């Protein structure tokens, strides 16, 4: 099983990834599966038994399409086909802040350590690094900045709130 970095209660740890990605043409599978948004919306059965369901969104897929379906979903994987493609940052924030999703939001694709902090702020809590980062390196990168200037999905107090309490 591939390894995954998970953020839980402010702590990064390395965990086992139990999910298997299932292509649109692949038959129903055992265990935890990640399927495309199209397959989820088509209502086509993807799993056997009590496995969990994850859904994979490409950057152009609108997270609003999941509205009303999120209680069926345990995980949303947001793809970064390229490091530079920042659409998934918006998708993650909307999932957390607008759609109220509390399951796992996973960064997949060209996922590099230097975006760890931004990803955590936007509500990602699972990371599948493409650069071989260790959990220690990932945590150090994500925790580099002592202060932030904006409100985002992570609940961190922005500078304008901290200042109010000085």
């Amino acid at each position, binding site marked *: 099983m591939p390894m995954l970095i998970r953020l839980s209660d402010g702590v990064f740890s390395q965990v086992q990834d139990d999910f298997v990605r299932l292509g649109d043409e692949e038959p129903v599978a055992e265990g935890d599966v990640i399927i495309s948004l199209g397959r989820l919306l088509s209502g086509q059965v993807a799993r056997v038994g009590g496995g969990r369901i994850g859904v994979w969104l490409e950057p152009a897929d609108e997270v609003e399409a999941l509205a009303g379906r999120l209680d069926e979903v345990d995980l949303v994987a947001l793809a970064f086909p390229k490091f530079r493609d920042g*659409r998934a940052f918006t998708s993650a*924030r909307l999932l957390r802040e607008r759609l109220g999703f509390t399951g796992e939001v996973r960064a997949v694709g060209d996922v590099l350590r230097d975006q760890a902090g931004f990803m955590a702020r936007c509500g990602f809590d699972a990371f599948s690094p493409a650069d071989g980062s260790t959990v220690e390196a990932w945590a150090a990168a994500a925790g580099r900045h002592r202060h932030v*200037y904006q409100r985002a999905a992570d609940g961190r107090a922005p500078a*304008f709130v901290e200042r109010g309490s000085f």
Partner: protein
Amino acid sequence: MYRYDAVDRAVLADRAAEFRDQVRRRLSGELTEDQFKPLRLMNGLYLQLHAYMLRVAVPYGSLDPRQMRALADIARRFDRGYGHFTTRTNIQYNWIRLADAPDILDVLAAADLHAIQTSGNCIRNVTADPYAGAAADELEDPRVWCEAIRQWSSLHPEFSFLPRKFKIAVTASPHDRTAAKVHDIGLLLRRGRDGATGFEVIVGGGMGRTPYVGPTLKAFLPSDRLFSYLEAVLRVYNRHGRRDNIYKARIKILVAALGAEAFGREVEAEWEKIGSAGDLPGSEIARIRDAFTRPELADSPAPGDFEARRAAEPAFARFVRNNLRAHKLPGYAIVDVSLKGFGETPGDITADQMDVVADLAERFGLDEIRSTHEQNLVLPHIRLADVHTVWKALDAARLATPNINLISDIIACPGLDYCALANARAICVAQDIARRFEAPDRAEAIGELKIKISGCINACGHHHVGHIGILGVDKKGEEFYQLTLGGSGAEDATVGKMLGPALPIDRVTDAVEAIVDAYLLHRKDGERFLDTLRRTGDAPFREAVYADAH
């Protein structure tokens, strides 16, 4: 000046440490150049033709003497003794060693300066009116909003990997000195009927390959709703801006493709969903306003011998005519410092000159210095009684060329002398034109005439909004130049129109002179070049330039 607090300083220190780590990983080979590129670009480090170039942010063009001296120090220790002020009011160093970049950031951070987001597909340095806080015609100091935008946009978790770069301008005067309408977002501060402030919001202007004067998306946005609205615009852009072609990735292309109305509706819908949760509390705006030092301006200080000197010394009188602007208070003037000396590179400044400007700001200028998008500097608060002394000192440092807004006050990009993107040189073209019009009486007789030169279609030299724009192109390995006429970056923003076929480099200055002569022939009383051109159309000018080609 905005005074940084412990939070602002910690952000800079953390960012400098992060970049030091990234450079270390690059130098050790842990990162490839491909992986390093987007990281260094987030921090203003470009790989140019000959060396690394580091672009340092001058947030909304405001500097104090301590910061100017830090910039001079960097020029001496890490570069070749000079720097270059850009059309984004930033300063760049052209001869940087990668291994020195982290140390430079530390020097900058010690002076509350940084290179954050001076490149990359993120929200760049905000442009402000360079006369902010001093201009006689402003409604309020726009820099409070600029600083709030600087903080909000710094290391923004959602908007640091946009389809393309994103530039915001803020002005609070009816006369626009920021080129707001050719920015991704232009914010024009207005006062509503009830006296509260708001912004006219222009979205989707730009230059580059496809120039647009941006449409007004909102005629009056209450200022306390600014940040939720910016978030809405940026979010719509981040989701829907094109990412398949970097030349079609700016917001202007999205706005033009959807139409301003449809784009505006999307923004309104998003804005409604965000609600006031996206706004900065009024208490924070008030805190930022209070964190700006108030220059201790006296009540109508005596002008001393200003008028007598002006009457007695023609060279001083010429400087006063061209390089002074009306200050909001009697007894003061805004002094423009020209970085357009004849034979110099527009925007270049030596370390020694930086020190001179720093000293003058400290002794006579209430510690304030500005950089302008036209690549000059400004001392915004000089007592009339001190103007002569300041002029003498500037003149001794070759910083008093009396040519602001005149034909030799040329914007030019670095062009093929430095830039890996350029097709043609820009600097030598600017120098040649400036020399042709060096005679000061003639230049004053010509009056306001803005020439802007870009060495390639990316338009860093703002040629689209030059009264005369000059664009370098490559024709089978030779440098050619296309002329455009009638552009303006001011409140009457206009994209210039191409005059005719491109010219070889040795004909450009002659063509400019032919245009000027045609203007002098056709102009009526009091008309600027732009006024005459708008009245006559470009036929007389085309005739003048291309006559001998018939």
